């Protein structure tokens, strides 16, 4: 009996091809980021100015912080369309609360605590409707997207809510070691997020639930609690982002604050390698995804591309980034 061995040359090349693709898929977002950075720096002198790079870190930080939460939600098998509206709502309530305090330091503290508390509670509401109410996440958060925005308009009379304390603006605009505070926060939160995701039980369980909820339930994981927690995390981070954004402008527009941040956050997570179907993803990848989006948008301004066409470039970047990773 002759056993035809697969030609070893072709097998070896297949192995290499496979490895290369696997590698591309694992490190894809980082390679893309590096290539993009170099290309932009070469093509635009304004782009490579240190201050511009610092600006980019701040420009991405608000939706980037939200994208971290989105990463958890998506890995857990869900989606949260409400985070943008939630940012506006949490921030508005925070500003209203702070304006009731006369002591500036206290007022800022109140804004921080209230915004984050509102964010986390509204996230908990999403989570409860999804787990206890057994309604698909897309629907729940589509509903609360509308509800949170509408409540914001209502409490702000559809206008702008302005903080009466200058300290709030100084806080939101703070620069530490040359880097803006929100950018620091983004970095720190991303590191904490990465540790939670990779090194803790919660993170492992989130992956398990997103990968196959039934298996997770049979493995004695409280799947409802895990899913619930991802929405609380997302809401909590939306609250943090709201404080930073409100502090930056010392005010929030009830109509436009956070508008369509959810789409940017989802795009960042996906570009960063998180699987839309859940079960797999990385917070640092999301950070890279947010940077890619931010750099593209920045360099288009630097190149003077018509704003009308910027959406096309953004859309193409999203699709291509994912296309490259899917080749595995």
């Amino acid at each position, binding site marked *: 009996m002759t056993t035809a061995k697969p030609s070893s040359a072709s097998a070896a090349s297949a192995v290499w091809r496979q490895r290369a693709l696997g590698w591309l898929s694992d490190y894809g977002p980082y390679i893309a980021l590096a290539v993009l950075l170099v290309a932009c720096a070469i093509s635009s002198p304004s782009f490579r100015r240190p201050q511009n790079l610092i600006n980019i870190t701040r420009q991405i930080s608000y939706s980037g912080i939200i994208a971290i939460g989105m990463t958890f939600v998506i890995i857990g098998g869900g989606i949260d369309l409400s985070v943008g509206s939630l940012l506006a709502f949490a921030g508005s309530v925070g500003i209203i609360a702070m304006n009731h305090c006369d002591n500036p330091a206290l007022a800022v503290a109140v804004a921080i605590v209230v915004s984050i508390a509102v964010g986390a509670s509204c996230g908990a509401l999403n989570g409860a409707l999804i787990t206890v109410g057994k309604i698909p996440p897309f629907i729940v958060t589509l509903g609360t997207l509308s509800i949170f925005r509408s409540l914001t308009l209502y409490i702000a009379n*559809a206008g702008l809510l302005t903080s009466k304390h200058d300290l709030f603006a100084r806080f939101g605009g703070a620069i530490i070691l040359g880097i803006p505070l929100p950018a620091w926060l983004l970095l720190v939160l991303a590191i904490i997020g990465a540790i939670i995701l990779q090194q803790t039980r919660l993170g492992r369980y989130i992956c398990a639930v997103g990968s196959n909820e039934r298996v997770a339930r049979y493995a004695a994981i409280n799947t409802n609690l895990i899913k619930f927690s991802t929405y609380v995390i997302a809401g909590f981070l939306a609250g943090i982002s709201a404080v930073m954004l409100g502090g930056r402008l010392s005010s929030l*527009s009830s109509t436009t604050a956070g508008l369509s941040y959810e789409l940017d956050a989802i795009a960042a997570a996906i570009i960063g390698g998180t699987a839309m179907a859940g079960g797999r993803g990385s917070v640092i990848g999301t950070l890279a995804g947010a940077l890619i989006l931010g750099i593209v948008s920045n360099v288009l301004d630097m190149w003077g591309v018509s704003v009308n066409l910027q959406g096309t470039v953004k859309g193409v970047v999203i699709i291509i980034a994912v296309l490259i990773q899917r080749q595995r």
Partner: protein
Amino acid sequence: GCGKKTSDQLTIGISIPSADHGWTGGVVWWAEQAKKNWEAKDPGIKVIVSTAKDASEQVDKVENLMVQGIDALVILPHDPSPLTGICEQAAKAGVYLVVVDRGLDKPVQNLYLAGDNAGFGRGGAESVVKALAGTGKILVMEGIPCTVNSIRVDAFNEVIKQHPGIEILESQSAYWDTEKGLKLMENYLQKYPQIDAVWTGDDDVLLGALKAYEESGRKDIKCFVGGAGSKAIVKRILDGDPLIPFNVTYPPKMIADGVDYAIKGLRGELADDEKTIIIPAEIITRDNARDFYYPDSIF
């Protein structure tokens, strides 16, 4: 005007864009104000406020107002052409029509009430020219693309063209949005080493642009010109901010004025030849800023 209904119950419908940025937020606020004031003052009057996120929704909303038997419609159209048909229908049905701010394609209205958009653009341009003494590099941040925006930008460019010493570095849309203005300005500050003046055509955007400039620590820009007289900017003029020498009014209160005119029109208190009322674009400077400062308004 049409039928003189003094003693009758009058129902006024207001149809406006939803608060998609600060100024329209002001419009919504003033519309609610008009409702509150009129209904408190005159039991014979009922005001219905209706907002729409885009032109096609606004058509639906006008239909819904008409079903409710309105006697007058005070409308700030999203865009002229899409709303012309339904307004024509309303006028035919005998509804007293007051069009505010953005005009229709056909003059089917009883009264047209608007700010001076051309004057708005021209005023901005002239003050920039004056501040730069005729030479310098400027940036333009346009608004949400619509008629109002193009009238203003065209008028602005018209004036600038006559001053060859002034170079427009770039003209992009900031959508009348503070955050977008902030980001755009941050990027421009990196891109252009020398900027002499900025025209944002809107005070919301101006707030963002100012913030970016202040944070950059640069000192080259001589003036920022916005427009519409938002309370935040008027306050800074009042406080003597050297960067903001000037502003043009464009009061969102015009929607409430529209309601007043509609009621007068229905009651036959308006002269028949009063067809168009242009609220002049008033110039706000440090000297008269106090007259334009409404701390209780939301815009």
